[in-house]
């Protein structure tokens, strides 16, 4: 017992000397200004601000996204939301019309220069918009949020396939695990040990080869992802191999992810099921799928496109900062 005391004391001393915020006070002022600008942007377009629960009885099933659990003293658990997507779609199905939300989201284990397990998402849905219409709106919003920092505003648009052909010389819709693995090795990227899935290698290629090769002085949209990476996007009406999904990237850093929203409850149910099976195979925690979302889709989701934007990263961009800790009052390590 006694032996532990100096260690405990030094831990406490370390914490006490580390009470200050990670973000400079003028960055916190820039954050407040950015939030005001976001609200002005949507007010001018007649998009309604909403709030949905942070704590839910169902979780994201995505095997690459891990929910934090909240334990009830009585022994039950709920989930901190990883994005407000399901609840916002239920509002859309209930007839809300265009909506947006500035919300905290939580993702277990995501910690690094660009990730904090608790972060701020701006998520919005536009009825009657297609992918292109929403990408234009995202470009317009980001340009208005970073306008003081003198960044080039003109956005560029590329398909996922086009970028893989340019950087790795392979067609992501036709490549194989062995082909892509070889190309990655040639590019100096060692795939992880053990058996890799194709999606795993596509993700590795995207983050280590494709994104770093993009022009770093402008906003770039990558769209039409392989259907295996559809997440919650609907498939392309003219090509079943492709999902109507986009990501917005600046300087190799992902800022936003958007979809033409999947509205088919049967397809959504199948994706939940696939996710849950994959989670079981990978030995990940089982989670409760959102039955209420399936109910909302069955009752009818208006045709819409939606997007989630990482506001902390946009603030990093606007302020020219390299680490997410520098734009948060208290990041994970300080919280």
């Amino acid at each position, binding site marked *: 017992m006694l032996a532990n005391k100096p260690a405990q004391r030094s831990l406490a001393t370390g914490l006490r000397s580390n009470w200050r915020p990670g973000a400079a006070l003028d960055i916190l002022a820039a954050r407040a200004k950015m939030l005001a600008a976001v609200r002005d942007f949507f007010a001018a377009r007649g998009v309604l601000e909403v709030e949905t629960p942070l704590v839910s009885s169902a979780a994201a099933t995505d095997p*690459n996204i891990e929910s934090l659990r909240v334990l009830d003293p009585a022994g039950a658990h709920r989930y901190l939301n990883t994005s407000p997507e399901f609840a916002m779609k239920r509002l859309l199905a209930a007839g809300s019309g265009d909506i947006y939300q500035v919300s905290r989201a939580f993702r277990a284990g995501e910690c690094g220069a660009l990730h904090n397990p608790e972060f701020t998402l701006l998520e919005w849905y536009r009825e009657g918009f297609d992918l292109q219409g929403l990408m234009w709106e995202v470009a317009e919003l980001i340009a208005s949020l970073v306008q003081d920092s003198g960044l080039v505003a003109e956005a560029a648009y590329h398909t996922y396939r086009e970028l893989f052909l340019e950087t790795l010389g392979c067609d992501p819709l036709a490549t194989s695990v062995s082909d892509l693995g070889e190309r990655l090795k040639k590019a100096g990227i060692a795939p992880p040990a053990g058996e890799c899935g194709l999606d795993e290698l596509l*993700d590795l290629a995207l983050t280590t080869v494709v994104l770093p090769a993009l022009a770093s002085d402008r906003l770039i949209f990558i769209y039409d992802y392989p259907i295996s*990476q559809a997440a919650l996007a609907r498939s392309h009406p003219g090509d079943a191999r492709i999902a109507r999904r986009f990501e917005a990237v600046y300087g190799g850093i992902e800022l936003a992810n958007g979809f033409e929203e999947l509205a088919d409850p049967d397809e959504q149910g199948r994706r939940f099921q696939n996710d849950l099976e994959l989670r079981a195979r990978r030995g990940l925690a089982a989670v409760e799928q959102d039955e209420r979302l399936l109910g909302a889709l069955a009752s009818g989701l208006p045709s819409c496109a939606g997007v989630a934007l990482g506001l902390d990263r946009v603030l990093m961009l606007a302020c020219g900062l390299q680490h997410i800790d520098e734009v948060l009052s208290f990041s994970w390590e300080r919280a």
Partner: protein
Amino acid sequence: MLTKGSGRGIMRALQQHLRNLPYMASYSTNEFRSGLKILLDGDPCAIIENEFVKPGKGQAFNRVKIRNLKTGRVVDKTFRSGESVEAADVHDTQLQFLYSDGEFWHFMDPETFSQCQADKNAVGDTAQWLKGEEQCQVTLWNDVPLIVVAPKFVELKITETDPGVRGDTAQGGVKPATLETGAVVKVPLFVEEDEVIKVDTRSGEYVSRARE
């Protein structure tokens, strides 16, 4: 054959088995920090840089720059985030050099008086600065010396060098000098045989005459 109830027996057997295994520490990728020592393909390695990368909706990876402590080589490795890697029992300690028998260099812990021996790979170029009684920083892996670093400065006697040129003072030329350990360093012309000089072991350069 699995019958109802046999599951508990299997769990008990498994727990018993796990208790009997030697304790092996491991690190999850989210504990990765620069300086962390891990075991990779059986070799002890140190993490130099760790970067977390993840597409918003995709697989997370840790891209890691790693130095193999046996070979000194630096390699890039990719781990799936959440994977665990075995920890390497590597730590630095100060040991006193005793003597070399030609094959091994023998060291002693000045506090416990316990001794250990380092082989040629561990000592490497450091050998040329050691004559005995130096305090060296020794990196131990499973209590066996892996890397031996000489003290930053050593004082050694010159056993052989050309005679100094009279009249030539502090300015200008240098000449080779062989030290009592066999190391050869460049010294100013005015330094003579049998003098003791101070050498910076990191650069292998002459610093000054040793103070009497």
